[in-house]
C-alpha cells in the first residue's frame, strides 16, 4: 500500500469506487479483451480495438464511436499489469493508424492532454473490490499555464475560500 501525500492528489484526477464483486473478477473485466469491449465504451457509444495487448509494454489502439461526435481514436501502452492488483497505462489521442494527433485537430477540446497516465489499483475486503484510479492531467495543466502544481493548488485553495 503506498500512501502518497495528499498534495499529489489535489491536482490530479483521483477517484475511488467500490464494486460488490471479488477482486479477480473486477481485474479480469479490465484485462480480458472480450470483457473489456462490453463495458468500456461510454454510454451510447461503441468501442473497437484495432490493437490490444494487455500485458507489460503491450500496446493498444482503440476507437470509440460516439453517434454524436463520430470516431475518437486513442492509443497507449500498458506500463504495468500485475494480477490482480494493479494496471497502469497511457492514453494518447491518435488517428486510425496510431499516429499521435493534436487533440485540437481531432476536434477535441484544446485543453485535452496529449498524453495522460492512468493508474488503477484493486483491493478487496469482504468480497467487495475497491478501485483507486489516478490520472495525471495536471502535467498538461502545468504546461498549459506554466504554473507549477503548487501554484495551482494555491489557486484552488483561494477558490475554495471564496465559495
Amino acid at each position, binding site marked *: 500500500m503506498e500512501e502518497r501525500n495528499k498534495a499529489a492528489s489535489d491536482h490530479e*484526477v483521483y477517484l475511488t469506487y467500490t464494486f460488490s464483486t471479488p477482486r479477480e*473478477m473486477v481485474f479480469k473485466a479490465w484485462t480480458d479483451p472480450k470483457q473489456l469491449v*462490453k463495458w468500456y465504451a*461510454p454510454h451510447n457509444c461503441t468501442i473497437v480495438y484495432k490493437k490490444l495487448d494487455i500485458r507489460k509494454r503491450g500496446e493498444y489502439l482503440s476507437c470509440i464511436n460516439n453517434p454524436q461526435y463520430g470516431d475518437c481514436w486513442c492509443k497507449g501502452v500498458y506500463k504495468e499489469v500485475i494480477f490482480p492488483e494493479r494496471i497502469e497505462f497511457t492514453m494518447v489521442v491518435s488517428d486510425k493508424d496510431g499516429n499521435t494527433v493534436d487533440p485540437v485537430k481531432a476536434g477535441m477540446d484544446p485543453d485535452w492532454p496529449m498524453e495522460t497516465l492512468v493508474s488503477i489499483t484493486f483491493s478487496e475486503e469482504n468480497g467487495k473490490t475497491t478501485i483507486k484510479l489516478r490520472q495525471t492531467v495536471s502535467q498538461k495543466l502545468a504546461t498549459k499555464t506554466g504554473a507549477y502544481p503548487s501554484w495551482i493548488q494555491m*489557486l484552488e485553495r483561494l477558490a475554495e475560500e471564496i465559495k
Partner: protein
Amino acid sequence: MTVAARRDVFQAISDPTRRQIISLLSQQPMNLNTIAENFDISRPAISQQIKILEECGLVIITQQGRERYCEARLDKLSEVSNWVDQYKVFWTNQFKSLDNFLQDLQTKKKKSGRKK
C-alpha cells in the same frame, strides 16, 4: 490567420508576473503604483499585465481620483478545478458501466451454477 487572444483563467495564470500579481491581490486590494513597487519591471508593463487580468475576469479596476484600485475576483479560479472534474465525470460513468457489467456477470454465473 490571426487568433483572438485567449482571455480565460488559464491565460491569466500562464504568466509568472500575472501569477504574482494575483498572489498580492489575493491578500488585499491595492492601487496600481503599490503593485508596481513589488516588481522590477516598469509601471506600464505592470499596468498591461493587470489589464490582461481584467480581461480574463480576475481583477476589477476602479478609478478613484488619480489612483487606480485593483481588486482580485478569484471565483473564476474554480474553473481550474472544474477542468480536472471533467475527467472525473468520464471515469465515474465508466465505473457505473463496469458495475452493471459485473452484476450481470455475477447473475449469469449464479444461474449457470444452479444448472450444474
